[in-house]
């Protein structure tokens, strides 16, 4: 059984929701990424979404774009993202790691090479923002071969018919975007979430993760009731960007992430 399934099964048994923090690999500094990941787990993260920095992140807002630019400037590459995961795995073999990013660096790396090395490094799943399922067959068959999951997004604009199609191609969990717009926006309309997620729930057994617009305890609780996992990205990246060293990172995570994970897992 995959790390992701094990994790979601265990959370389900305990009637808990997963907290999935997103960080950009190499931000605020390449040497701080592994300690950041461990600190996130220590403070209640169930799964880690690790951003593979890209120069032109079209679907991301200013915060994640800036974090990517900084990480690239400081020498972060796709291959060093994989090194980060290997190093993380030396001390943590249980927490699933999902790589999130854009296709061009992977095209350059080579699909076969990348999937093989990702699997060897201990990566569990991939989420490629600019690769809809229609264009994914080549990568998907490689992922299957190496037992990695491919995570797809469902957007507020995704029609029901398309939801079914996306779900038929998905593995690991399904990532539902709670609002139109780029990452880091804050105008979530919670009013129609209920119906939307009930529909998706009726279409799949995959765990449902909800993200975009989650920035604190209240917004996390507001979306958690509809899904199995809550993704928190830009708000965290913004705070990490202000940290100058490992100590500040640990302090920030304890102050910011711990209350959210506690709130989510309270009966």
């Amino acid at each position, binding site marked *: 059984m995959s790390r992701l399934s094990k994790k979601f099964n265990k959370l389900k048994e305990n009637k808990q929701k997963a907290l999935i923090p997103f960080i950009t690999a190499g931000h605020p500094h390449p040497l701080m990424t592994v300690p950041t990941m461990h600190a996130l787990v220590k403070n209640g993260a169930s799964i880690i979404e690790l951003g593979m920095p890209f120069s032109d992140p079209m679907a991301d807002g200013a915060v994640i*774009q800036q974090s990517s630019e900084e990480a690239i400037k400081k020498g972060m590459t796709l291959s060093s993202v994989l090194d980060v995961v290997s190093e993380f795995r030396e001390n943590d073999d249980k927490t699933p790691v999902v790589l999130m990013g854009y296709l061009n660096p992977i095209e*350059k790396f080579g699909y076969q090479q990348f999937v093989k090395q990702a699997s060897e490094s201990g990566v569990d799943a991939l989420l490629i923002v600019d690769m809809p399922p229609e264009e994914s067959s080549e990568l998907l068959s490689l992922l299957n071969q190496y037992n990695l999951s491919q995570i797809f997004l469902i957007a507020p604009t995704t029609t029901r018919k398309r939801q079914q199609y996306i779900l038929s191609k998905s593995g690991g969990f399904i990532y539902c975007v709670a609002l139109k717009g780029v990452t880091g926006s804050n105008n979530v309309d919670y009013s129609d979430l209920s119906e939307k997620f009930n529909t998706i729930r009726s279409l799949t057994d995959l765990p449902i993760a909800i993200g975009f617009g989650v920035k604190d305890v209240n917004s996390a609780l507001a979306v958690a009731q509809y899904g199995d996992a809550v993704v928190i990205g830009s708000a965290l990246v913004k705070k990490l960007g202000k940290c100058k060293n490992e100590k500040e990172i640990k302090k920030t995570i304890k102050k910011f992430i711990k209350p959210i994970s506690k709130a989510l897992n309270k009966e």
Partner: protein
Amino acid sequence: MTNYYDFPDVKGHFDQYGGVFASETLMKCLNELQDAYKKYKTDEAFQNEFYYDLAHYVGRPSPLYLAKRLTQNVGGANIWLKREDLNHTGAHKINNTVGQILLAKAMGKKRIIAETGAGQHGVATATVAARLGLKCVVYMGEVDIQRQAINVYRMKLLGAEVISVKSGSKTLKDALNEAMRDWVTNVDDTFYIIGTVAGPAPYPEMVRDFNSVVGREAKKQFNKQVGGLPDAIVACVGGGSNAMGIFHAFLNDETVKLYGVEAEGKGMSTGKHAASINAGDVGVLHGNRTYVMSDEDGQIIETHSISAGLDYPGVGPEHAFLNDKGRASYVLANDQEALNAFHLLTEVEGILPALESSHAVAYGIKLSQKLVKGKNIIVNLSGRGDKDVHTIAALEGINL
């Protein structure tokens, strides 16, 4: 033999190129756009309105002009100019914006967004938006805003809001990223008018089709003035919309050689160029698979060209396809060659070409010298150079 009119396929692929590489939020509106375009492509009333506007608003057909003194000066094959510089707003870009705004209107969209590099597409978009009374927002890199101040002011006069993009290299690619972000956020009421034959399907096909009037006219005009077919067509390629526009009518006429001229900037060895096909690799950028200029880690690299309109690290997927098929050749002209061509055409023909088009003129001159006298080359003079006068003066140390 390949029938080039079989491409793209229903999913927007030109063999391995093109396609839809976009975030999920955009998939619904891309599908809607695909359906709407399919419907209106064969809708008689829509097409009549489009051609009416091309004739009476844009001023088509644009002339096909034999540049006699240029030809004499060069001493080789005849150089003909397809005068897209004479269109309303001064470039071929208006053909596409006239078409897309009609589509936006038909789809009931209220707000228009666009990206622009040299500002020609921004002006062409602001123009048609003003004409239909639609709100228009144009994204433009901060660097381009500085080098194309006149076009920025023109857009503002036309009522458009010009948003300065300060991310990344602050040029065309970043303006495109920002426009995509706007579209993802305002997807319900907004129509994104992409200015080149790139982006996710259906844009490469749609922008090509709206510009293909250029090649159809040229073919007819040449046949009337000379008879038969020209020997070669030359057009500059950034994203490649003017080139696809003039190539398209000739794709299945294999005796007609097609040349796309990429910007060699300061020279290939310096790395400061924008020659995506000559120097790039197959990758994915801005919604389609094509040749992309990126570093060894797949990060998009900053390109350089004297002309803002060619300063783009990708290229339309159909050009990538035509290159691989060997149907079109992608050649180079550097900054200096483009400047020389600008001056020569201005001095001997009284025509100021845009710096983009000057690259095509520069290669047209080279080709003319290679071919025997009496052969015929059509150079797509895609835009006029008034917008570049300040840039050229500054480069040559002249204070206006």
